[in-house]
């Protein structure tokens, strides 16, 4: 069956099987491999993308359910020139990246959080990221990164 959706501001029509998951379509059919599969059961958050503006575990979305949707992945945060987004830069500057497997998902949830709340408290960041599991950094630096990104956005204009 064919489905059509907008991903990273581009409209795509893809031939999918009813049993495919949105994560499979994004990774295999579209070749956008930033979103990762860590558990396949919505526990770890590595596959987080924004679906119609909200973070979802794309391993729990059946591909046909994304028909007509708007999707944003980490690849979509890059500028047209390929420059990384201030939020991504903050993850670099704060030293929040180790093995990196959780990072694309964590960035997408953080991105949504900062859209909603320009200046979140540390506790609010923790709560927002509760569904993004990291096994390396112990979370402190990830929270630092989101705080740092918030400061930058406050100073340098709003979230795109």
């Amino acid at each position, binding site marked *: *069956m064919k489905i059509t959706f907008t991903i990273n501001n581009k409209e795509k029509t893809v031939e999918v*099987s*009813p*049993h*495919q*998951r949105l994560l499979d379509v994004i990774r295999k059919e579209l070749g956008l491999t930033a979103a990762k599969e860590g558990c*396949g*059961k*919505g*526990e770890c*958050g590595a596959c*987080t993308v924004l*679906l119609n503006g*909200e*973070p*979802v*575990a794309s*391993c*729990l*979305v*059946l591909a*046909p*359910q994304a*028909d007509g949707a708007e999707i944003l992945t980490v690849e979509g945060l890059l500028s047209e020139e390929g420059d990384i987004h201030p939020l991504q830069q903050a993850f670099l500057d704060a030293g929040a990246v180790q093995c990196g497997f959780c990072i694309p998902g964590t960035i997408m*949830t953080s991105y*949504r959080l900062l859209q909603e709340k320009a200046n979140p408290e540390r506790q609010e960041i923790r*709560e*927002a990221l*509760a*569904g*993004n*599991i990291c096994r390396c950094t112990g979370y402190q630096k990830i929270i630092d990164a989101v705080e740092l990104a918030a400061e930058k956005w406050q100073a340098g204009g709003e979230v795109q």
Partner: protein
Amino acid sequence: MMKNSRQNASNRQENFGENSKKGQKEPEQVLGQNVPIGSADYLAPESLNKALEYRSRYGYKAVVIAGGTDIMVDYFEKLPEVTSWLDLTKISALKNIEITREEIIIGSLVTHLEIARNEELKKYLPLLAAASSEVGSWQIQSRGTIGGNIVTSSPAGDTLAPLLAYQARFVLASTEGEREVAAEEFFVGPKDNIMEPQELLTKIIIPHPPENTISRWWKVGKRKAMIISSLTMALLLEVNKNDRIQSARAAYGAVAPTPLRLESLEEYLTDKDLQEVELKKAGNLAEEAISPISDIRGTEEYRRQVTRDITIEALREMQQR
């Protein structure tokens, strides 16, 4: 011997996801081993009537999916074996929250996130809003629906104790018509309910709690997020100006095969001065009224002790409010 061992082997593979109990009652009718891979029917009606038609035609043979946060886990690695899907997410009629003078009516497809963030629900149904805000994670709340939580009927389902405490009624529709059942009548066992294969849950109807209602929600789990509850509690007291408890509703989850109201505790609290409630006695009544099991989320002893403790703590907080 051969047959027996074969069963062992296949069971082992299925049990790789130990906690993913079957969401459907008769999964063998759903999974078709010999269907060519990728050839399943995908039904995604926009109208409720069409969905009910499909439901009466397919029954258990079509897997019903909404937010997918339970179903996709149940069918992990078995997705290619599903022969038919009935996707409800395009039915906008089931996505409304309606507040009338007497009742609050929530469509079965309303997500946990919508409930958690709805200002009116936070005001009228704080237990439900709080429970919804603690389901899984942001990612789960933005997909998972209240209807799904009810239909999955896990004794640990987070919204179920609040729905029992609020005396919710569920509207079950089929091509034959509608029927309304009380939340308490709906659940009959772990992951089991009275729904028929041709029915869909369409609405949750909750009478407005009286204005002088005070309430406490408690979720106990091994971590704060992404956890299936070890225990939930929704305690709701209607208290008059003189601090007399006019009615009490105490609902608990994950302490019995179904979410449960504790009548003995409710009876004890009713018609009592809130300040004169003996906390220990209330805690003991709660502990005695439940029938928990021991599992990976807690032993029976643990569940009894925690039930007692949080009951006492919640009542103490209410006394000191």
